[in-house]
């Protein structure tokens, strides 16, 4: 799907895949360190001594997937103390995020995405317009437990919004506009809003052009800016729901010739849950 969208953005790519659930009381954490030779075992043994329990580690390229018997906050505090150069790409019980600079094909091959399976997934290929081409600037962005965001567009009030969110304790690593949207949703969800409420509130608070796709533990949500500057097309069959920027990206899907194809209306929150 992403290869046909490469012309829209070939500089970096990323995937969020929702698969096997971590046991009750455990979390899955996707981590990244720029050094291929980074000593993940050393980090893991330090995390283990903090948690007092064994931690499951899977390494791939610059990424590591940890399954840890702790909660999100404890882990974030621990990692911030242990190594500031390690980036948390996702936290949840089902989500795993992989993202890097390069074309979708390169990123797929680097992380063996073809061999992976799950209930649902979100992919993104980026053409940077607002900020640097980097792993941290790639999508999807984590927005909380089992949540992630991908964005097509550019936000115009992200600098002001970033400053306001910082005052409320949201941390940012880049100058990227989408990271601000992700931070905004994290902040709204922390306030106790549901995802739908947070998305509806964003219509007021986030200014600019966007199609957002938000992955959740159970499914995904879509929101387009009220002016409809950015595209989206949906395909629905009895077996699946798929969303893309363009129909071209959907043509490889099974049964697409018989799918119900439609455009999400601007300014309306849509969401789907797996059966």
């Amino acid at each position: 799907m992403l290869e046909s969208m490469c012309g829209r953005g070939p500089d970096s790519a990323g995937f969020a895949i929702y698969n096997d659930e971590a046991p009750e009381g455990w979390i899955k954490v996707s981590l990244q360190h720029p050094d291929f030779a980074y000593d993940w075992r050393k980090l893991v043994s330090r995390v283990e001594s903090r948690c007092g329990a064994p931690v499951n580690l899977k390494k791939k390229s610059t990424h590591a997937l940890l399954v840890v018997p702790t909660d999100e906050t404890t882990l974030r505090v621990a990692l911030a103390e242990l190594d500031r150069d390690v980036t948390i790409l996702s936290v949840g019980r089902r989500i795993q995020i992989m993202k890097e600079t390069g074309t979708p094909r390169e990123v797929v091959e680097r992380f063996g995405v073809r061999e992976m399976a799950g209930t649902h997934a979100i992919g993104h290929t980026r053409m940077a317009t607002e900020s640097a081409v980097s792993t941290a600037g790639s999508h999807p962005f984590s927005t909380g437990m089992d949540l992630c965001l991908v964005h097509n567009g550019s936000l115009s009030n992200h600098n002001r919004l970033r400053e306001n969110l910082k005052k409320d304790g949201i941390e940012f690593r880049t100058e990227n506009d989408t990271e601000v949207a992700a931070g905004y949703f994290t902040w709204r969800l922390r306030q106790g809003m549901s995802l739908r409420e947070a998305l509806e509130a964003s219509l007021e608070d986030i200014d600019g052009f966007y199609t957002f796709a938000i992955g959740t533990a159970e499914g995904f949500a879509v929101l387009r800016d009220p002016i409809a500057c950015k595209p989206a097309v949906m395909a629905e069959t009895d077996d699946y729901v798929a969303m893309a920027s363009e129909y071209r990206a959907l043509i490889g899907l099974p049964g697409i010739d018989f799918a119900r194809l439609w455009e999400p209306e601007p300014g309306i929150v849509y969401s789907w849950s797996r059966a």
Partner: protein
Amino acid sequence: MKIVDLAVSSVRELNAALHEARGDPSRWRVLTPGGAHAVAVGLNAPVTVEIEGHVGYYCAGMNQLATVVVEGNCGTGVAENMMSGLVHVKGNASQSAGATAHGGLLIIDGDASARCGISMKGVDIVVKGSVGHMSAFMGQAGNLVVCGNAGDALGDSIYEARLFVRGEVASLGADCVKKEMLPKHLEWLAAVLEKSGANAKPEEFTRYGSARNLYNFKVDHASSY
């Protein structure tokens, strides 16, 4: 009939072949469009092109004389800047259908999304379904006929295009007003509805157009500009 399969040929090859068909009223069938952009663009001969499936952006853009039939949906900007000829979309059209088009007829059997007929300059557009917001924005000439409903801000900042809507209008844009339907309008509507194969009666439509208040700068209107 000439058949071009876009699973085998490139869009560039198809368009080049169509451009060479000057003055030749040939018939073409395009297979496996797969949502490709710029299919059958810049035609300038009375050819007929049938496209079997969905196309991407700017299909039949800049069309002159040709008839282009899309047996599926269209992405953004179908028939943009059309000069003459006929473009018939059998499915739905995305945003900015018929944008800036100077002439010809664009028929959309399904719905068209936002900004249908934006800056239209003489084209006739018949949408059998509904249109999205800001349709006919800054329309300068031509006719937009909507058999279903129109979204917000219909005809915003319109100059002289005529708008006919059968269903509900969510809201009218700046300087767009309801207008009286005269016999000449009913007559014109009857003809274009028949030509388009639209199952609607002229009397069911309401006409909208420019109040012409934004034509000249008036300081009292400063907040409206």
